[in-house]
């Protein structure tokens, strides 16, 4: 993998911020976009912008081909069995909410259980909280191990015959933990529950095979995987999607509309109300081409290497605490940490003055912050365009931040 060659594909990285060359370490929030994705959006808007599935005209056909072509790229990318199982949505949040509101509403009743974990992102907590409140079901949490991993014994303990839905993130956006989704799915199925996977931090960084995982639903976002914002995917097994009611009505999803009743299109369009996210889907397709050309296995290997390098260098800094699994092979390409006596916001502001972009805050995981017993943390997250030099700059910046605050105190 030639990182310098890859970096040239990302024009945004070639700039100075506050007088310093930019080091972008916030890809877990949103990744940067390569030229090919930017050009795909431009080509669509300049050359064949049109609504899909309805125009008889040529541009309409080209737009439809682009949009549906992107669906096939997504299908292959996650190895879904059929195109009907790939639904374009705004992002992971919308996808999980759709499952909760549609599948959840129809299949969960009072006395049932929904199982999530203490490490989930708010987007994989609140839809289930709301569903539990509406139905009278119980929302249960799988506890975490000391190092921020899940134990399958705890999973087995928490999931029972009353459990109807299990929803767990594949990779933690805070701890970097990679969860054993395949094994958890088996446990869910043994108990008659469906398995929902929040794949937001997994799809950009590793090969995902939804058939091998055997999960019932899988949700992810385009903008974290080199694609545009506003596009994401809900994968669902056909048997579930067929039985589910749409959540949004009107526009693209209708079949026949009468005065008192209407019917819906077949899958996958049944869940794609309104004018679809055409440019977004085409951009996501271009992002998938880009990632495939480099190879997801290569990307994953490289990010492990970066994480291991970062953990080694960062743990040399006195007073720096790293959260999550200590073994770099057990974690994805991000490091969440705190520096003694420096609040993460102050840390992020000082690093920003040095051209280094990191995330500070609760990372949309307040229950996890509570478990870690901190109010907020700092996070550096890596993607295929980051380098060891980026991490050296971060480490250097952290050392200087420490010095700066010990001086002003």
């Amino acid at each position, binding site marked *: 993998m030639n990182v310098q060659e890859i970096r040239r594909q990302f024009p945004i990285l070639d700039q100075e911020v506050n007088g310093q060359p930019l080091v972008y370490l916030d890809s877990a929030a949103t990744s940067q976009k390569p030229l090919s994705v930017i050009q795909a959006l431009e080509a669509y808007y300049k050359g064949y912008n049109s609504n899909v599935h309805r125009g008889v005209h040529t541009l309409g056909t080209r737009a439809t081909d682009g949009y549906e072509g992107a669906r096939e790229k997504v299908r292959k990318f996650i190895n879904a069995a059929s195109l009907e199982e790939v639904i374009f949505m705004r992002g992971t949040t919308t996808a999980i909410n759709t499952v909760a509101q549609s599948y959840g509403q129809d299949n969960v009743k009072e006395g049932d259980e929904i199982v999530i974990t203490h490490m989930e992102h708010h987007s994989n907590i609140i839809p289930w909280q709301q569903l539990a409140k509406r139905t009278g079901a119980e929302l249960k949490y799988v506890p975490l191990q000391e190092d921020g991993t899940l134990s399958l014994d705890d999973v087995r303990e928490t999931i029972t015959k009353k459990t109807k839905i299990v929803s767990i993130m594949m990779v933690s956006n805070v701890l970097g933990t990679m969860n054993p989704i395949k094994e958890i799915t088996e446990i869910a199925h043994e108990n008659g529950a469906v398995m929902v996977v929040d794949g937001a931090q997994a799809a950009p960084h590793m090969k995902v095979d939804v058939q091998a995982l055997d999960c019932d639903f899988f949700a992810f976002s385009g903008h974290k995987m080199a694609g545009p914002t506003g596009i994401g995917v809900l994968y669902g097994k056909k048997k579930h999607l067929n039985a589910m009611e749409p959540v949004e009505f009107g526009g693209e999803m209708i079949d026949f509309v009468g005065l008192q009743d209407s019917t819906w299109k077949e899958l996958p369009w049944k869940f794609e109300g309104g004018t679809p996210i055409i440019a977004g889907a085409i951009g996501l397709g271009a992002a998938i081409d880009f990632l495939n050309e480099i190879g997801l296995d290569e990307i994953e290997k490289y990010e492990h290497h970066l994480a291991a390098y970062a953990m080694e260098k960062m743990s040399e800094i006195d007073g720096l605490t790293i959260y999550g699994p200590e073994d770099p092979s057990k974690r994805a390409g991000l490091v969440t940490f705190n520096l003694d006596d420096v609040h993460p916001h102050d840390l992020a502001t000082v690093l920003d003055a040095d051209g280094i972009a990191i995330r500070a805050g609760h990372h949309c995981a307040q229950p996890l912050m509570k478990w870690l017993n901190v*109010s*907020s943390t700092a996070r550096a997250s890596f993607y295929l365009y980051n380098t060891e030099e980026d991490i050296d700059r971060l480490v250097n910046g952290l050392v200087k931040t420490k010095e700066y*605050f010990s001086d002003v*105190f």
Partner: protein
Amino acid sequence: MSFNNLDQLYRQVIMDHYKNPRNKGEIEDSVTIDMNNPTCGDRIHLTLDVQDGIVKEAKFDGEGCSISMASASMMTQVIKGQPVEEALKYSRIFSDMMLGKEYDDSVDLGDIEALQGVAKFPARIKCATLSWKAMEKGIDQQSE
């Protein structure tokens, strides 16, 4: 690394308030306001003792960055003993200062002036204004 700009933000007096917060604590049987900054997790627990239109006592508790905690400390310091209208006037002045607008400097702003530099760091303005919003809300509550 150029820290010149940062020195505008992290003034000595701010760090002093952060390390040695004034009026830290809680007043019992008083107006209580809990506010947080949902994007970053900063939170403040402010208690005000308002009698006959005067802020007799103000105390705060909470957690957050140096800017939010120092601002809270300075805010309680400046409004203590002031009539409610004066406290609100300080709040307006502070808001103007954060927005980088011309502000009324005819009153003695004391340590608050050290927070001027925050206006140049847009991402941090909400840190500085949290406690002031809590104070406005508290005065609003007790006048109802």
